């Protein structure tokens, strides 16, 4: 197998050039990566492969690229793959990138073993196996990076979509839009409760006008939030209960006896105002005592 290492390192320049030239424009993605960067990545990969081949024996190769001798090669592949994932390359582009290395390497091998069929076949087979395994490592690293990216975006989306609004002194509103799953409810709950403490608000109106369905799970989540708020000394009012939701709740046998619910947010707000000892009054219609503009001039003359 060290023959393979020799073959590759002896023909490195030619292999690299053929590799890059052989890549169709769609795999090259000149819009995502410059010629120079591409060149660098290809060099790094070839060096890593040679190093891996030299450091591991034939037994290692049979066992795949998991051995210690391939550690730094795997890292190189993983980091190149991860950076491509972040840049926006597709799975196919990333896999093809590695697999298209086969042709130039096979060409180099054939050039070395002219006439010796057995050696030729063995070496080509070994190279093929190797590149397949490395392509798998690359694809796996790619997937992991994409998943992390998606997770992070989901998180940001969650945080953006559950704002807590202060309606009045001591009265908060939490308009929920969209579906409530476990992860989201956790975030909603924590956010609401922390705001309750920070603003010393005794009332929190949870408006579910924007929640499409309420099943047993969603109801449980809501109940947990309400119970936690109560333990802290605050009271939750659920508003925005649509007729269909009311029906669903009754059909499912969900017990909302201890929960105050209102059809409209405004009703809930009125209730919270009332419970906190306030009412809304109209301003008196008597004319103002002085023209505020002339009052300004008067003061200046003083």
């Amino acid at each position: 197998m060290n023959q393979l290492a020799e073959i590759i390192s002896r023909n490195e320049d030619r292999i690299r050039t053929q590799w890059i030239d052989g890549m169709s424009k769609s795999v090259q993605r000149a819009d995502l990566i410059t010629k120079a960067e591409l060149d660098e990545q290809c060099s790094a990969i070839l060096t890593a492969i040679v190093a891996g081949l030299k450091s591991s024996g034939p037994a290692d190769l049979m066992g795949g690229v998991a051995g210690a001798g391939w550690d730094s090669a795997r890292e190189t592949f993983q980091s190149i793959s991860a950076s491509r994932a972040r840049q926006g390359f597709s799975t196919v582009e990333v896999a093809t990138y590695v697999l298209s290395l086969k042709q130039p390497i096979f060409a180099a091998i054939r050039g070395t073993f002219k006439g010796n069929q057995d050696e030729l076949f063995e070496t080509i087979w070994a190279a093929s196996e190797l590149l397949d395994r490395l392509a798998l490592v690359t694809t796996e690293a790619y997937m992991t990076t994409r998943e992390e990216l998606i997770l992070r975006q989901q998180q940001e989306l969650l945080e953006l979509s559950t704002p807590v609004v202060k309606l009045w002194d001591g009265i908060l509103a939490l308009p929920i839009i969209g579906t409530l799953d476990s992860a989201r409810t956790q975030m909603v709950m924590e956010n609401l409760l922390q705001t309750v403490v920070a603003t010393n608000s005794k009332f929190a109106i949870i408006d579910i006008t924007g929640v499409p369905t309420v099943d047993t799970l969603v109801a449980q989540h809501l109940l947990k939030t309400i119970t936690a708020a109560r333990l802290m000394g605050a009271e939750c009012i659920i508003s925005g209960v649509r007729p269909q939701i009311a029906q669903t709740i009754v059909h499912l046998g969900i017990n909302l006896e201890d929960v105050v619910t209102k059809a409209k947010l405004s009703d809930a707000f009125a209730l919270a105002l009332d419970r906190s000892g306030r009412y809304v009054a109209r301003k008196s219609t008597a004319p103002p005592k002085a023209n505020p503009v002339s009052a300004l001039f008067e003061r200046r003359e003083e």
Partner: protein
Amino acid sequence: MNILKRDQQHLKNSNDVLVARQKVRQWAIELRFSLVDQTKLVTAASELARNALEHGLGGVMIIESLSNGPKSGLRLVFEDQGPGIPDIELALKDGFTSGSGLGLGLGGSKRLVNEFSIESEVGKGTKVTVVRWR
């Protein structure tokens, strides 16, 4: 999966339960768990440590920090050589009690962690393992 760090805490009296809680809190902070997750972990530890002490007649808590790829986690094992639990399923139900109070706290603790497993043999002892991932 790797075990990065390991420590032990004997549970012989109620003060040990406090020390166990503090240890779990510290390790959870080091692993950068959110405040809510820290609280859940420490509370679960408190329940299970107390169980080991009161029902298990004393035992030990083993605390390990884990790493599984990019994820990091905290694993707690509570072992005692007490009378054991004859009906584990029953014990996991909320409200089940074998003495005074609300019960063994097992069902509740289960909800506070990501992974929960329990082995128990009557006359030999009980071992509860819980893991919370960050």
